[in-house]
Each structure stands twice: as structure tokens, then as C-alpha cells.
């Protein structure tokens, strides 16, 4: 589905003409709805209510359209149909059929990036998600042609990444990726992204779900994002040296809209971390979240930078620094919004372990960090320590946290953020295990993610809890729900449905992990 618009400044038609034009265009195949109105305030609201708001189109107008400007908006199944409908509408309005079918040339799909550039010479950003072995050429061609790149593809050799990033830097371009999950540029979400208003907080991140968590918590505080620049997960490795994070930092430092900057990454290479921190000594406040890195270790070089240990902590800091109210973030105060002691009391003596099922790698990391501090070893496929690695064929071992989005689970099937089948399987087996005390799982909302996760998780949760109940167990399910009210799935709707299924829903992954820990740490004492 696409929304396309046409603006005709100072253009006036009576409503009969506009309605008949709209009707003619609406009757075209592939057209879902169309609006032709003067761009008054309430008409814009009307368009919004009719899912006809051309947000990006309006954002790029030099001046916002006003009541003397005619705005024609069409919602159609795809670009071609939308453009066709706008063309018909425009032709009807001008009622002179003197335009040739020049556009026939544009209707052929482009088969290479270069040909796409011929179709739109102003293209400035390439979103690339082809398989890793071919991603290099596409990214290289985009950079050579002066385009910024959002590179979702993974399995790009590190040498190639290094070379491409050098090319990007030499041309003053951003190469977000490889393996970049999310970004928000000029208010447009790329990849897996949440809908958030534009604001004063800028993010540079080497972690997709880490950035998503920050963005959602900032949105919860009513604040907005200026830009969110992904760098790809390997950017802060020794080999790459954090070039994109530094470039992103530079860009945000120079960006007027950005007042506070957050840098987020899984543990970076020591040398790189120091370089990044050195680069972060700028006039604007910079919040740094190096997950898993002991802030003490960098205390000597942190300088002006504000170090935070968790994503929630980082979001709270940034919101405060940007003049917002950190208490609006559902952080510590929200921890006891459910009656955790009561839940704990209901557990059977066999129920001793947390079973965490994550689709977001960074969220899983953060949970493991918090849990291991409180509970000791956490078995995992992406363990914090090598000796905590799950053996082949082992599903759970004691406290266990799985990153179901990592290669060994996603080979040959969609990522669990897109298709939850794998998560549901593990949810069922965790529920069947009498040692399971609590199931902790994440659900990530936003563009590209599954359309209505609650509709599949809720029945699964109800069933799992019922089954446990029959076996004489109470089975608390804690959900780390990462999303915003503006997301297509709607945060509040998902939360309501999941809570109705008996789940405890936290928007802060940290609080979700802490709640899970509270449920079992005491049961261990009792045991």
C-alpha cells in the first residue's frame, strides 16, 4: 500500500469538479481511496483519519501547504497504481489531454541500481537487502553514485565492509550496515523501525533492537528523534574501528535539530571505545550505552560523556538532558505494577528457572547481563561467557536465554520478528518444562515486524498457562514489548491483548528482565 500526493498551490476548483475527479480516480483498479481537498488544517486531519495522510510528501514541501492549495492524495496498492491515479486526477482537472504517454518509460521496473537512478535521478539513499554475496556490489554502486546506503544484508565479509566504509567516508556518505536493522532518517523509518515523532534526540547505534528500545522509550516520554543512524553490528570491532559511529556522531554534532546524542553498542573493542569516547567530547550532551562494558573501565576517558549501563538508563538520561520528563518512561516505577510477590508465591517448588526467548539480539544481551548479575550463569546460544554455551541438542539448561533471531535458528526461515513460529515452539516447550518458573519473551513492533503479534502470542500464552495449570503449576509470562503508539500494530492495543491473555507486559526490557529475576531469586532462597 502506498500513499502519494499532488499539490497544486493556489489552485481552485469547485467541489463538484473535485468530487468527480476523485470518483474517477477512485474507480481505477488498485486505488483504495482518494482525497482532493484544499489543504486546510482540518482537511489534513481528515486525511489523517482516512489513512490518507501523505506524511513524507508534506514533510518535504518547502512551506507547509495551506488553505489556498489544492492537495490530492491517493492510497493505492502500489506505486504504479498510485501514480496512475494521480495522473488521471491531474488530467481530469486540467481537462486537456495534451500530455503524451511519456510516462510509459517509467513504468518498466528498473533491474539495476543504475537504471533505478535513471528513473529517479534525485535518489539519495539505497536500501539494500539482497543476499550477502551480492550486497557488496550493490552498496558499492550506490556509494559510487553518491547515495547513502542502508545495508540490511548480513554475511558481508569484514574486509569488504572495511573497504566500503572507507569509500563512503571518502565520499562524505553514510554506509549504515552491513547487518543494519533499523534507522530513522529525516523522520522516515528504514528497515525494522518504530513510528516516533521528530524531535531533538539523535541516536547512532551499532545495534538494531538496542536502538529500537531507546526510540520506543523516548517516544513513551513524549519526546522525539531527530535522526537515528545505524552503523551495523560490527562497526565498533577492532577491524572496522568505529568509522561509521564517528561519522554519525559528527553528523549529529553538526545537526541543528539534534540537541542530545545517544551512542549505543554491544561491547566495543577497547581501543575503538576509547576513540569513540574521545570523539564524543563535544558541546552537545552525549549519552553512551556500551552494553556489557563496565562504566568504571571507561570512567577515565568518558569525560563529558554520560555513561549508562542499560538501554532504559540511557533513554532516561537522554530524555532528561533533552528537557523531557524521565518519569514518563515506564522504568523502575513500573516494576511493581503487577503483583510480583503474589506471582512468586504461586510458583511450585520445581519451578526454579527463567526461560527467556528473544528475537532481538541486543535485548537478549541486555537481559542476560541483568539476570546474570542477580542469578549467576545464564545458558545461551549467544552466552556472555563461553562456558555458558548451550550444548548441541540442549534446549534449556538452568536459567536460559535464547536469541532466536541468530543464524542457527533463522537459517532457511524468516526472522522471528517477522514470523513467530520458532518463538511459539520454544514457548510451548518452556511451558512444558516443570523447571520453568517464568517465561520472558520480547515482542518487537514497528514496520517490517509481524502485523499483529498479540493475535498469535495471546492464544499461545493462554494455552501455555492453561496447560501448566492442569499440571498444577502457575506459569507467569513476562513480555518485553518494544513499540510505540504510532506503530502499525499500536502499542496499547498489543499490550491490552497480551495482558488480557494473562501476560505481564513491560515496555522497558530492563524492567521485564528485573521482574523475571524477582520472581525466581526469592524462590531460590526459599528452596
Amino acid at each position: 500500500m502506498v500513499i502519494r500526493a499532488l499539490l497544486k498551490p493556489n489552485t481552485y476548483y469547485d467541489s463538484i469538479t473535485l468530487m468527480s475527479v476523485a470518483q474517477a480516480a477512485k474507480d481505477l483498479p488498485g486505488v483504495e481511496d482518494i482525497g482532493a481537498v484544499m489543504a486546510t488544517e482540518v482537511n489534513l486531519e481528515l486525511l489523517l483519519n482516512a489513512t490518507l495522510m501523505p506524511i513524507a510528501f508534506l514533510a518535504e514541501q518547502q512551506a507547509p501547504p495551506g488553505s489556498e492549495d489544492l492537495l490530492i492524495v491517493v492510497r493505492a496498492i502500489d506505486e504504479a497504481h498510485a501514480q496512475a491515479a494521480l495522473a488521471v486526477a491531474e488530467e481530469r482537472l486540467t481537462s486537456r489531454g495534451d500530455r503524451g504517454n511519456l510516462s510509459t518509460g517509467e513504468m518498466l521496473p528498473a533491474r539495476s541500481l543504475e537504471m533505478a537512478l535513471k528513473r529517479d535521478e534525485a535518489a539519495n539513499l539505497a536500501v539494500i537487502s539482497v543476499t550477502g554475496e551480492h550486497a557488496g556490489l550493490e552498496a558499492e554502486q550506490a556509494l559510487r553514485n553518491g547515495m547513502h546506503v542502508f545495508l540490511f544484508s548480513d554475511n558481508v565479509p569484514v574486509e569488504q565492509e572495511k573497504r566500503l566504509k572507507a569509500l563512503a567516508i571518502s565520499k562524505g556518505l553514510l554506509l549504515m550496515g552491513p547487518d543494519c536493522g533499523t534507522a530513522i532518517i529525516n523522520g522516515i523509518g528504514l528497515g525494522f523501525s518504530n513510528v516516533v515523532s521528530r524531535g531533538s534526540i539523535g541516536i547512532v547505534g551499532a545495534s538494531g533492537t538496542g536502538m529500537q528500545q531507546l526510540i520506543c522509550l523516548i517516544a513513551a516520554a513524549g519526546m522525539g528523534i531527530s535522526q537515528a543512524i545505524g552503523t551495523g553490528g560490527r562497526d565498533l570491532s577492532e577491524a572496522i574501528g568505529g568509522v561509521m559511529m564517528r561519522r554519525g556522531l559528527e553528523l549529529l554534532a553538526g545537526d541543528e535539530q539534534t540537541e542530545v546524542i545517544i551512542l549505543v553498542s554491544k561491547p566495543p573493542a577497547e581501543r575503538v571505545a576509547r576513540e569513540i569516547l574521545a570523539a564524543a567530547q563535544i558541546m552537545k550532551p552525549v549519552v553512551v550505552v556500551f552494553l556489557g562494558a563496565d562504566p568504571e573501565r571507561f570512567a577515565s576517558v568518558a569525560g563529558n560523556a554520560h555513561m549508562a549501563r542499560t538501554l532504559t538508563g540511557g533513554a532516561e538520561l537522554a530524555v532528561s538532558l533533552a528537557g523531557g520528563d524521565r518519569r514518563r518512561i515506564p522504568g523502575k516505577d513500573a516494576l511493581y505494577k503487577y503483583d510480583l510477590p503474589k506471582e512468586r508465591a504461586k510458583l511450585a517448588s520445581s519451578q526454579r528457572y527463567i526461560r527467556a526467548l528473544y528475537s532481538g539480539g541486543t535485548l537478549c544481551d541486555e537481559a542476560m547481563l541483568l539476570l546474570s548479575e542477580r542469578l549467576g550463569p545464564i545458558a545461551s546460544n549467544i552466552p556472555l561467557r563461553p562456558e555458558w554455551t548451550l550444548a548441541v541438542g540442549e534446549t534449556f539448561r538452568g536459567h536460559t536465554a535464547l536469541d532466536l533471531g541468530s543464524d542457527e535458528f533463522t537459517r532457511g526461515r524468516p526472522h522471528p520478528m517477522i514470523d513467530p513460529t520458532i518463538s511459539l515452539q520454544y514457548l510451548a516447550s518452556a511451558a512444558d518444562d516443570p523447571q520453568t518458573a517464568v517465561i520472558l519473551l520480547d515482542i518487537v513492533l514497528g514496520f517490517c515486524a509481524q502485523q499483529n503479534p498479540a493475535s498469535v502470542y495471546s492464544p499461545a500464552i493462554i494455552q501455555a498457562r492453561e496447560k501448566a495449570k492442569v499440571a498444577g503449576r502457575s506459569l507467569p509470562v513476562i513480555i518485553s514489548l518494544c513499540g510505540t503508539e504510532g506503530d502499525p500494530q499500536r502499542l496499547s492495543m498489543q499490550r491490552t491483548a497480551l495482558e488480557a491473555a494473562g501476560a505481564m507486559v513491560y515496555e522497558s526490557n530492563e524492567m521485564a528482565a528485573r521482574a523475571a529475576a524477582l520472581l525466581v531469586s526469592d524462590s531460590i532462597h526459599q528452596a
Partner: protein
Amino acid sequence: MAVSLIVVDYSRPTHPIFLQEPRIGNVHSIFNKATNITLDGTMLALLSDELPRMPNSVRLRSDVTYKLLPNLKPGMEVCVGNYSLVIPTCNFSLQLSDTPLWEPRPDVNSYQWNRETVAQHTRMLTQFLANKQPQGGLTPLVGPLFLDQSLQETPLSRMAMPNLRLLAQASWWQNLEGIEEATRGLAGLGPGLTPSGDDVLGGFAAIMALLSTQLSADSIPRKHIASKIASVAKPRTTKLSGLLLEFASRGEVSEQLGTLLLTLMLPAEEFETVLKAADHVLAFGASSGGDTLLGILLGLRALEGKID
């Protein structure tokens, strides 16, 4: 093509514009039988004499209109003043010297008004409008508003419905904040050069301006409500629409609307004359007439104090 003595009539509020020293305006919009001209923040409508008179209209002989309009382009310079209007690019000029003036404010004060019969006409008109099964604009809301019919939910109706109710209630209770809020929600709403929301506001404001003294159940005049509506709406809608609302708030309305309002003082038995006049109003625009009538009805109901 120097033409003179081609003006059939012009409306009284445009008179001061022609009295001034000549000044330059621009062609704003062009239609089949009409064109609008902007000038110093106001607007003149040059209409073919086939069209009804408007508060800001200068009507021309239809043959002249047909020759003129195809040559006009938006933005063309128009020179107005000293009883003449000249469009240099089209080599067009008109003189107003002996042309009759038309008064757009219906002479409501010369008649006796009876609240009972007006209320009966109002019921009749409501039913009449609902029976037309109107499409487009806000007119379809007549059933849900007054006849307890169910509301067909559309983005337009969802936005308009609460504000229509609020407009009527706030007017009865003379709650200016409520009026402002309702007006904000309706001004500029809907397609066209005079969006539906404005047409409703126009009809409503005209009632407040012209008949609130005679018809309100509490006998309190509500002319200030009309002014409030116009001043809140003006910056939120198209220039033309804002201007027409301003006229309406002074009781200056189109020829048909004026006629309809005057028929309301007829005895109840003469309802057919009322309906015929309503039909003429309805014939205006795609939904404009219906929307205006809806505003009229809403205003009349509000004056009865019977709005829930």
C-alpha cells in the same frame, strides 16, 4: 474587445471597492460561469447572470461572461476602482455607472415572525432534506443529527458530528469557548473552494445574525455568535470561504438563501413555497446547498434550545 455597460447588477458590499481610487487585484480562480478576483484581502465574484446573486457578486451578461472567461488565467492583473473594472491583458473593461445595486441582507425586520410556524417549517425542512438521501458533504448527517437515524461512519462524519452538536449546544448556552472549538473543527473541512464545514457554518451564522432576536426561545440575540464563528473560521479556510462566512455573519447571504429565510415567516399551510425555496438552495453546488441548509436547520434548532 472594449465592452462597457455589460453589468447586470452588483451587490451592495462591493460598492465601496468601486468607489475607491483604482487599485490592482488578481484573477484568483476561474469557473464555467464565474471568476473570482482578489483585491486588498477581499474578493469580487464576476458571475454570469444565469447564476444567483452572491453577497460579493458583480453579475455580467452571460454572453459577455462566455467571451471573457476562456481568456482569463489565474494571477492576471485586474484594475478596480472609479466605478470600473479593467483586465488589461484581455482588453476588457466594465463601467458601473447606472448599474443597480443589490442588497444581500434579507429584510427580515419588515415581517412578523412566529416561533411556532417557523418550528413547523423547520421540522418539514428537516424531513425534506433527509428524504433527499443526500450524498457527499455533511448533508447526510441530517438524519443522525435530528431524526435519530444511525450514523454512517466515515472519517468526515466522525470529525464533523461532535462539532455540529457542540456548535448548536454552545450557541444555546452562549458558550463562546465551545463555539470556538466547534468552529475550529468545522472550518475548512471537506473538499472544494468552499469546504462543506464552512457551508454549514455559513448557514448557521446567517441564522444567528438574522433571526436570533426574533426566534430564540429565550429571546436573547446571538449576533455575536455569528461574528465569533467568522473570526475563528477565517484564518482556517480558503480565502473565498472565509469571506463568505464574514458576509454570512453580517446576515449577507446569497439570493436563494435570503429568499428561503424570508419564506419561513409564511403561514404553516404555505410549506410548499418554503420547500421550493429550499430546492433552489439545494441546487447550488454539489453539496454546498445541502450543507448550507444543514447549517440553517442546525441554527434554527439551536434557537429552539432543543439540542441534545
